[in-house]
């Protein structure tokens, strides 16, 4: 039990958060629950608080649509929430695709694929290109370009409104992450993750590394889906300030030496 708590507490909490949110949305559609209605693109909390995907709103703006006040407020609320929490909290605590890519990554580790494919052939910066491309294509084609293909929305809608061929999108992402590219979707391509990585740079909840406790076992780097953000491990005592950190807390759980912990962002640089 202590083992479960020590090694999986955040993982379990994250799964609860992801599944609970999904259940609430399903309830909103099928049983008329008024806690939250709609889906992750745009929803209504308690029947009156608008919440909207700021990246979708940005694409609508690029596509030349008129942005309603409701939408603007909803997008602003979501942006501010994630800005304060640390942007990619969405990715690891809310997004349904996270469970798919986590599963692929888990299998990858168990099957030792990472030892065969040591180097990943693609740059993690592709996602920022895709982010830019989403906006450019939205402008050119006059539609919300990423929303037309987003596997996040496909998955989320499949769960709430019915599957259709939605399973194929989920399967493709799973296979892509498993066989082609480690952390392929979430860590290399997804423009929504890139968007939150950009807006969430200033987030308050940050992982803190204490170098003096670290034994350099590198378990954290092995499990981290964005391990470039952990560059300081065993080298320097620093907070993980990179926006690409999803605050999933896996590094904290796997650390046997208590060298990593959640902390509040230090606003002023410490004097040494």
């Amino acid at each position: 039990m202590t083992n479960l708590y020590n090694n999986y507490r955040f993982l379990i909490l994250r799964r609860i958060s992801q599944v609970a949110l999904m259940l609430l949305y399903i309830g909103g559609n099928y049983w008329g629950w008024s806690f939250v209605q709609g889906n992750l693109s745009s929803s209504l909390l308690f029947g009156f608080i608008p919440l909207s995907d700021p990246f979708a709103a940005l694409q609508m703006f690029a596509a030349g649509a008129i942005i309603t006040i409701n939408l603007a407020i909803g997008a602003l609320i979501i942006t501010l929430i994630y800005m304060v929490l640390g942007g990619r909290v969405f990715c690891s605590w809310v997004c349904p695709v996270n469970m798919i890519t986590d599963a692929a990554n888990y299998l990858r580790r168990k099957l030792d694929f990472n030892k065969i494919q040591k180097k990943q052939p693609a740059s993690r910066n592709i996602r920022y290109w895709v982010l830019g491309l989403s906006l450019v294509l939205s402008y050119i084609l006059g539609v919300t370009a990423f929303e037309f293909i987003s596997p996040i929305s496909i998955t989320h809608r499949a769960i709430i409104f019915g599957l259709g061929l939605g399973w194929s999108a989920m399967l493709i992402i799973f296979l892509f992450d498993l066989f082609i590219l480690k952390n392929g979707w979430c860590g290399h391509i997804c423009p929504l993750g890139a968007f939150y990585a950009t807006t969430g740079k200033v987030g308050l909840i940050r992982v803190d590394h204490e170098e003096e406790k670290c034994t350099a076992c590198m378990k954290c780097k092995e499990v981290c889906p964005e391990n470039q953000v952990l560059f300081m491990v065993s080298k320097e005592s620093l907070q993980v300030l990179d926006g690409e950190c999803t605050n999933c807390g896996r590094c904290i759980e796997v650390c046997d030496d208590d060298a990593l912990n959640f902390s509040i962002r230090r606003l002023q640089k410490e004097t040494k």
Partner: protein
Amino acid sequence: MVTDRRKFILQTARTAGVVALGGLMWSAYVDEVTANKLILRPPGALKEEDFLSTCIKCGMCVEACPFDTLSLAKPGDNKPLGTPYFEPREIPCYMCVDIPCVPVCPTGALDIKSVTTKNELDIDIAEMGVAVVDTKNCIAFWGIQCDACYRACPLLDKAIYLEYEKNERTGKHAFLKPIVDSDFCTGCGLCEHACVTKKAAITVVPRDLVIGSVGDHYIKGWDKADEKRLTNAHTQINTTEISKESAVDSLNDMEGLFDD
């Protein structure tokens, strides 16, 4: 010689290549899927091109619909993913007076103003589509009495009316032909849903697809309102080689017609 600069250039070129390839496939897909012109949207929907840029695909309208008429396009439906639509032969729009699907739209893709008259919601002015009768396969046009669509129409005698005509074949019966008036038809599809033939002989299609436009050249001289359009008319005369003379002179001119 492998320098950092060469590495950088190659890396950039590779990324640009991947992005270009992805962008091409991506826009081809979007182009393909938005080419479908046969989609019926919920009441109050903006024009299709504006609708596609404004709809955020949240499904609030779908959740609000009490008849499960609306659904969000899924992969495999060959429609822009996640956008709401309905298929009247399955479930038509029952034209609720309080139009629950429209006010919940967070982005205005379903425009409340387009279904409002005198500050009150008015579903009767919705323009979801228009019904079209296939007169060859409508049994009423055969002379068999059927007024299923006419009876099903929520705007009975306005959107669908019956035209009576003598049946010359029998000499003693009448045709009761259903005629759609596109001025009133909302495209709810209750007629298509009610149609008794194997495949419906009355079908709702998007208005843009079948409603014509006369242009400025024809005016209903007997209609005062239409006649008013003349006041905006402007005169533009083109002078050519022939039009220098009067039309009659030009016709009577024999020159050049004979060899002599």
